[in-house]
């Protein structure tokens, strides 16, 4: 059996009690709060980066072409640079050089790559994006003088290496607009390990 609440009891339960509990919990929160500033919103130890300073070292190229600079070049122009700066490591026409073959292997199925240790992994049969070639050349090549080629020269050498793999015409001009459009034979074969079947 329930008894009706008096008006005073009703006011206490609906208004005063919540307010009282609220006040008590606030006090508790204050009592048990960590000392101020131990875990601040931000430490303020980094300096705001200046857009010009960012632009100076923001050199990466994305596979859709974002990050590619102005400039252009053809394979024919690239051949001259390649023979002077690259051939001593990568071989004439990208074959049989001491430091990595770039071309010369037909576009085998990957199943044969896994089965045959002697098959080399070249730009034509293994690189999934042409943009990677420009990005890597700009970062790291030529090995004995990294960072020494102009953007036009980089596009030209990129075009020549792609041409050696039968992927662009000798006279085709490569630039920021055309490089990401090159169809690389290996692209469809790449699969992130997170989506792949577990294999040893």
């Amino acid at each position, binding site marked *: 059996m329930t008894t009706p609440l008096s008006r005073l009891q009703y006011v206490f339960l609906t208004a005063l009690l919540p307010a009282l509990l609220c006040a008590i919990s606030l006090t508790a929160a204050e009592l048990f709060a960590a000392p101020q500033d131990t875990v601040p919103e*931000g*430490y303020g*130890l*980094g*300096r*705001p*980066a200046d*857009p010009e*300073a*960012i632009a100076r*070292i*923001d*050199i*990466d*190229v*994305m*596979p859709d072409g974002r990050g590619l600079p102005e400039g252009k070049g053809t394979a024919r122009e690239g051949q001259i640079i390649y023979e002077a700066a690259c051939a001593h490591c990568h071989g004439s026409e990208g074959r049989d050089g001491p430091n990595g073959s770039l071309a010369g292997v037909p576009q085998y*199925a*990957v*199943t044969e*790559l*896994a*089965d*045959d*240790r*002697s*098959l080399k*992994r070249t*730009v034509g049969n*293994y*690189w*999934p*994006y042409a*943009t*990677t070639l420009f*990005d*890597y050349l700009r*970062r*790291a090549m030529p*090995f004995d003088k*990294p*960072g020494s080629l102009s953007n036009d020269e980089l596009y030209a050498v990129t075009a020549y290496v792609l041409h050696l793999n039968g992927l662009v015409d000798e006279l085709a001009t490569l630039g920021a607009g055309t490089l990401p459009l090159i169809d690389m034979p*290996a692209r469809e*074969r*790449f*699969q*992130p*390990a*997170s989506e*792949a*079947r577990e*294999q*040893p």
Partner: protein
Amino acid sequence: MSRDSRDAALETSRRRLLAVATGGAAAGLLGMSVRGAETDPTRVQGRLPSALGQRSGFEMVERTPAFGVVSLTPLESLYGTITPADLHFERHHAGIPEIDPQSHELLLHGLVERPLSWSVAALKRYPSVTRTCFIECSGNYFPTAGELSPPHLVCGLTSQSEWTGVPLATLLREAGVRSGGSWVLAEGSDAAVMSRSIPLEKCLDDALVVYAQNGEAIRPAQGYPIRLLLPGWEGNTNVKWLRRLEVTDGPSMARDETSKYTEPMRDGYIRQFSFEIEARSIITHPACPAVIEPGWQEIRGLAWSGRGRISRVEVSSDGGKRWQDARLQGPVLPKAHTRFGLPWKWDGQATELLSRATDETGYVQPTLKTILKERGPGSGPYHFNPIVGWRVLRDGELRFNPTG
């Protein structure tokens, strides 16, 4: 004793020490064998304290530079689980840059609210984290001396250190990741300006920007003044000489995540972003080129997994017919070299020793046969972690044996 007489006594003992020191130097100059002349160390004063320690002249422990691009950790010469910093393996793509920490900066930009730049000194002001973990190069199976390959040739591109730095999550919070940010490009300041794309999830999990290794500044070969540390992930992603982090909406498909550090598989695809180091183990003693004598000794070695803790190491001393659980030396840390041991009495007969690791995810180290069958013989050299061991010859010599 009065102050004067005490001072006089101190002066006398100082002179004696000097006399011993000069005498030793003179003996050295005269070409006398100091070691031979002072065979009893209790009869002569020892060397004085010095500014920098050095190894005993009786110990000869070195890395092995190989193939022009790496230097291998002498796994068979080390104890416990920490690799001395000067014996940590080396792999770099364009040499070791010389970087002045006073002028080095770390830039964080891209899909962030506030692009920021830090000096090395500023990074050191953040609350620091210290953790012990291994770094292993993903291409770490080169037993090029065949059956005479010692452990360092088999898998000397793994080393362990205690690293100290600031969580990358702290730096990302400072800059504020914008919606759409899902990857982080990490870039080094070497002559290859080496770069890798890392999923944001890992960066917010246990990634660190580290500046110290085994209690001192990182060695130049290990990324001085700062490197990225991604516990358990293939060495190449732990970008050294870190200069730039860019939050992006996808991977940049850098050279080292496409044409290198990927595995062609037998069923027709190329496995990419295989970041985690799979469980692995190796017996480091007895191992080639050691020669053992019959009787009791401890079979000991290292096991590790990039996916968590090692839960079990089994050892076989009869070529894989029977397996016994080895003792794991605690504390067993996640993503860390773990020392295992098993007492063994050699009866002087030819036999074969093997070790097999299992990690806490249940992954069991595979045999070479399984790897080659599943992936194909041309799928190497990355993520190659076969069960390996040592054939014991009747004369006590040991021979590398990968066919377990």
